């Protein structure tokens, strides 16, 4: 029996755009616009999309690192949307995040042992000695030599820094880990090392991952389920194989067809989308994708498509499925 760990409902995160003499809000960047998804215990849900699709904002808002504009966040059956930072603190132990940039996300003036230990200090866990011990064990777990604890981040390579990021996120035993593009900044031969580490740790520590990524080959390898975002909306959600083998939304189809394949013999039917992603300040009316959609119909301009379940666990928001 799977248990639902976290669920977001109609989540919205709009950023105000200030303008004019009195810095009034003149518009909003609709980074995340009524997005709903859930993650079950022990699984990996991937949020994929191109830059500006809102995937990172969705992940951060789910953790309440950003205050949601509206919508609900439910963690283990409890509505945490309106908890104060103080009320959130005990819950923070259970949810951690790891960032893309292995250079910008570690304090350059702190030895890595202290960086990894900091969450324990913040949450007041264990005695001094226990914390030191925990750091040494965690460093070994992620494949770093414990004797490096006195070294500074600049002495480590990108791959090792991401290991430090993993160690810092996992030291307080979280249940949920948001991985925000954890391998995109790494070299190809190092990427697979970090992917393996993340998968091994997930099994060993029964972690739940929200994996935010744009590399679809990695997403296919890592995920149980995948949600595709476009301009602040989730357009399609399905199980891994279902999504990659039977994509239904025209955007998902185009996105999958655009991925280059490392095999010169594979000649794929490619859907080349015209134009660029519109601005999230002023997204197209109706379906956000309609301006680039090869199948756009008049209704797509007037009405926003509803999310419908086409098969168990496979949801799509597209008029094509209801207009037939």
């Amino acid at each position, binding site marked *: 029996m799977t248990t639902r760990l976290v669920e977001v409902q109609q989540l919205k995160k709009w950023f105000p755009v200030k303008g004019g003499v009195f810095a009034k809000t003149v518009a909003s960047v609709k980074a995340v616009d009524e997005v709903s998804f859930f993650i079950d215990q022990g699984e990996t849900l991937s949020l994929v999309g191109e830059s500006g699709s809102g995937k990172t904002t969705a992940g951060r808002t789910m953790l309440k690192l950003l205050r949601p504009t509206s919508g609900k966040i439910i963690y283990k059956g409890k509505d945490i949307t309106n908890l104060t930072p103080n009320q959130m603190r005990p819950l923070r132990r259970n949810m951690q995040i790891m960032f893309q940039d292995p250079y910008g996300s570690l304090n350059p003036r702190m030895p890595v042992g202290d960086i990894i230990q900091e969450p324990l200090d913040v949450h007041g866990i264990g005695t001094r000695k226990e914390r030191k011990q925990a750091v040494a064990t965690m460093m070994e777990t992620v494949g770093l030599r414990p004797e490096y604890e006195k070294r500074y981040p600049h002495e480590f390579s990108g791959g090792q820094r991401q290991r430090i990021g993993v160690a810092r996120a996992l030291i307080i035993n979280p249940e949920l880990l948001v991985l925000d593009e954890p391998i995109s900044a790494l070299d190809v031969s190092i990427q697979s090392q970090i*992917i*393996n580490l993340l*998968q*091994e740790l997930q099994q060993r520590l029964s972690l739940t991952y929200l994996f935010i990524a744009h590399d679809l080959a990695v997403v296919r390898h890592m*995920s149980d389920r995948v949600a595709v975002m476009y301009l602040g909306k989730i357009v399609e959600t399905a199980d891994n194989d279902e999504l990659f083998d039977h994509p239904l939304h025209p955007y998902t189809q185009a996105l999958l067809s655009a991925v280059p394949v490392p095999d010169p013999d594979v000649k794929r039917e490619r859907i080349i989308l015209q134009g660029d*992603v519109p601005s999230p300040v002023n997204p197209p009316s109706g379906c956000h994708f309609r301006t680039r959609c090869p199948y756009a119909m008049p209704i797509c301009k007037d009405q926003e498509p509803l999310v419908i379940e086409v098969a168990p666990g496979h949801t799509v928001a597209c008029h094509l499925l209801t207009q037939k």
Partner: protein
Amino acid sequence: MDNREILVDIKNLRTFFYTEDGVVPAVDGIDLTIHRGEVVGLVGESGCGKSVTALSIIRLIPNPPGKIIGGEIFFHGEDLLKKNAEEMRMIRGDKISMIFQEPMTSLNPVYTIGDQISEAITLHQKIDAVEAKKRTIEMLHLVGIPEPERRFSQYPHEMSGGMRQRVMIAMALSSNPDLLISDEATTALDVTIQAQILDLMRGLQKKLGMAILIITHNLAVVAEMAETISIAYAGKIVESASAREIFKSPHHPYTYGLLQSIPKFTEKKTNEPLPAIEGMVPSPYHMPKGCRFNPRCPFATEKCREEEPEILEFSPGHLVRCFHPIES
């Protein structure tokens, strides 16, 4: 093998950087041949010397600290390393053009894109401003920029990343070059935009017939674009063959390991770990003795730790720098 005329022939190129911390042999014996109209991929991870190779070809190595200390770069049979600065300036942006990863930093933010492309055109072709503008609009049209007349007077910041890269391509191709060097030109772009740009480059190559040197870390991109692929590691070419050979029967343990380690988009999810290459790229200040890949190589022997392998022909047209090439 290839009956086409040889356009670029790089022989034993060595470009070193003399820094305060020591000497970096960024390119240490790279050989590369590009035929007329051929699309060649140069693939490797950061620090393998792929970009320095490109900058060496167009002689834009910052000196100091960098210096080309050896080798030859023949272009149309003439050694570019023997050209003086003035002669190089006439080749660069004319017969050889280059596009870079970040189009925003390659474009001047205070000039309109039309001015910038026209400037490149008037610099190399003896035509007046009116003619140059006409040609610029033609080029913008060629690279698929909608409403080129209007776009002519726009500034780089008014365009998206994909559009800016199209502008760079328009500028690079305006002189009708024989060689286009593309250094990670699609790396910073989104997947659907990358597909657009690759599609554009493929189409223009067919139409205009220039040779392209594609420099990238992305194996999938060269699989789709290149006829011939060279794999670089720590300043040396370790393997070179047709694209098909590289992907179907790699012989160097590094190439093999790299291909094994990338997740396959077309394969179903498994919980098996990826066959990763252990360790990391060596520090350029402390290159390992013998074969530079030996500390990470599962097949390394005493010989690999002591002697440096030569690059040899394993089968016709397939070069490998390894004492123990994989038979596959």
